[in-house]
């Protein structure tokens, strides 16, 4: 994996052209090339790179002159904040809507919800983001269109969740990022509800004369939440990846925007480091979700012991 990414990225373009002042003389060009280590053959560069990774060093950014890893870690909190908020949005919007559509499948409003969820799937994220900017920022002027607002430190965490300005900046990008997942949660919840309503344990709970609220809130939710949590866990990785698009539109200073900027400026070490980190992220998330799954669902554990 590291091999493919490293070699691949290092074949494109010549960063020297991008970086050096066009009026620089030959001696200065030579000096820069040597300083960046670009004069060495590519396999030597790769070995050097591998050695660096071993000690957590992905090389220095050509543009910023800082270690690539530090640069990415510096941008990471903004992305994680965005991804977490949109995950929460997906849950608090998606589950009630899905529950409603599942409990009353024949109502017109339910059909509307389902049609909306199809749109949420098929519309390109970036286009919806643009429309949101157009409507809320340019036309109505309710929300700021770009950037991250003020941040404050609370409970030792620096986040824009703690300030009004920060929240108003966060709302649009987070909703934009959440759209696909809201649709996903709606569909999962609806399917889960419709399946579970015919199960014996629901019928039994009703026959016992339990209040419908208790049947839905306890008996039903407990069972449909498992697949939703699993899928959302896996989706967290996708959110981090998709934030590339959202961050570019809303100029959110996170990892994704850093990646696009670095790609456009041929800042190789940052691109390589980003790709390695995001792959690592995915592997870890998949592992954690797998473990969580068996913790949450006793059936999975029993099956494993049986075989």
């Amino acid at each position, binding site marked *: 994996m590291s091999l493919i990414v490293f070699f691949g990225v290092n074949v494109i373009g010549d960063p020297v052209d991008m970086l050096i002042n066009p009026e620089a003389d030959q001696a200065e060009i030579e000096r820069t090339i040597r300083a960046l280590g670009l004069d060495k053959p590519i396999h030597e560069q790769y070995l050097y790179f591998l050695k660096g990774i071993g000690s957590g060093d992905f090389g220095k950014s050509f543009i910023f002159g800082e270690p690539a890893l530090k640069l990415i870690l510096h941008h990471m909190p903004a992305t994680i904040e965005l991804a977490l908020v949109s995950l929460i949005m997906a849950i608090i919007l998606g589950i009630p809507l899905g529950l409603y559509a599942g409990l009353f499948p024949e109502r017109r409003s339910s059909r509307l919800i389902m049609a909306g969820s199809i749109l949420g799937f*098929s519309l390109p994220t970036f286009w919806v983001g643009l429309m949101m900017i157009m409507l809320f920022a*340019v036309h109505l002027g309710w929300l700021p269109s770009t950037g991250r607002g003020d941040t404050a430190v609370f409970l030792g965490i620096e986040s824009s969740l703690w300030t009004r300005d920060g929240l108003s900046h966060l709302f649009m990008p987070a909703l934009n990022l959440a759209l696909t997942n809201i649709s996903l949660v709606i569909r999962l919840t609806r399917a889960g509800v419709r399946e579970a309503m015919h199960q014996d344990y629901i019928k039994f709970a009703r026959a016992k004369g339990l209040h419908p609220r208790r049947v839905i809130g306890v008996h039903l939710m407990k069972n449909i939440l498992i697949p939703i949590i699993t899928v959302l866990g896996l989706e967290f990785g996708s959110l981090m990846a998709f934030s590339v698009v959202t961050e570019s539109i809303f100029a959110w200073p996170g990892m994704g925007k850093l990646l696009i900027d670095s*790609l456009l400026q041929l800042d190789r070490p940052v691109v390589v480091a980003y790709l390695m980190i995001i792959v690592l992220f995915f592997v870890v998330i998949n592992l954690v979700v797998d473990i969580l799954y068996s913790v949450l669902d006793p059936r999975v554990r029993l099956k494993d012991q049986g075989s």
Partner: protein
Amino acid sequence: MSQAAGLLVETPLQRFRAEFRESKIAVAALLVLAIIVLLALLAPWITPQNPYDLAQVDVLDGKLKPGSEAFAGYTMWLGSDGAGRDLYSAILYGLRVSLTVGLAAGFLALVIGTAIGLIAAYSGGRTESLIMRAVDIQLSFPAVLIALMLVAILGRGIDKIIIALVAAQWAYYARTVRATALVESAKEYVEAARCLGLSHARVVFRHVLPNCLAPLIVIGTVQTASAIALESTLSFLGVGLRQTEPSLGVLISNGFEYMMSGRYWISFFPGIALLVTIVSINLVGDQLRDVLNPRLKR
């Protein structure tokens, strides 16, 4: 009984058509799609200007509102962009690029994915588990990430984008084909074909493959739509197609900088075109899924 059925016999194609027509929305979507393709094909003959012929573009026409009159005398119903191109013309030319990329990527991914899936299903053993492991790994990453990674490696341009899209999508086809082919291979007609002493290639291509086509068509439509969306996303981010290969995504990206000053139309109209294309392909795909799914057969 066979005689009674004989009276009502209809070819599979007829039945397919009748079932497809049951959904009015799907028929409408198919119609819209046909119109879009037609518009894209006829673009040079039905647009007032070739937006990429510098002789026909006048910078003085730049950023005109929808409905304004261009210097050359025709009306720009959808306005013009920053360089003075008529947006209606630019959108039709952009549709050509977007559809070409989407169809080429969709078709290539279909062929490659199908071939790999068939190999996996037919050879079994270690080859199969190796291929399927690769498919699983790939499917656990979102397509946009894989495409971005490849674009980072390959660079920009139409051919490279197609490669990136194919690489991001082949696994969907491979997984489906393998699953279907495994089911089909276990059936008697395949066994019969083998007993006749037919060659492996003939059994796979003439007997197994035709019976795997239904799910492939469904995935093909949906994946083509997502290829178009993915291409426009990459182009919007500035890492997809170049300005010289203006797809809808590139047009939207060009209009982005004018958005803040209230000149909405430059990215709004190409976006609508993109949207209508993607949604209508998806609607057709949805109906195909319902019609072709053997589990729902009445």
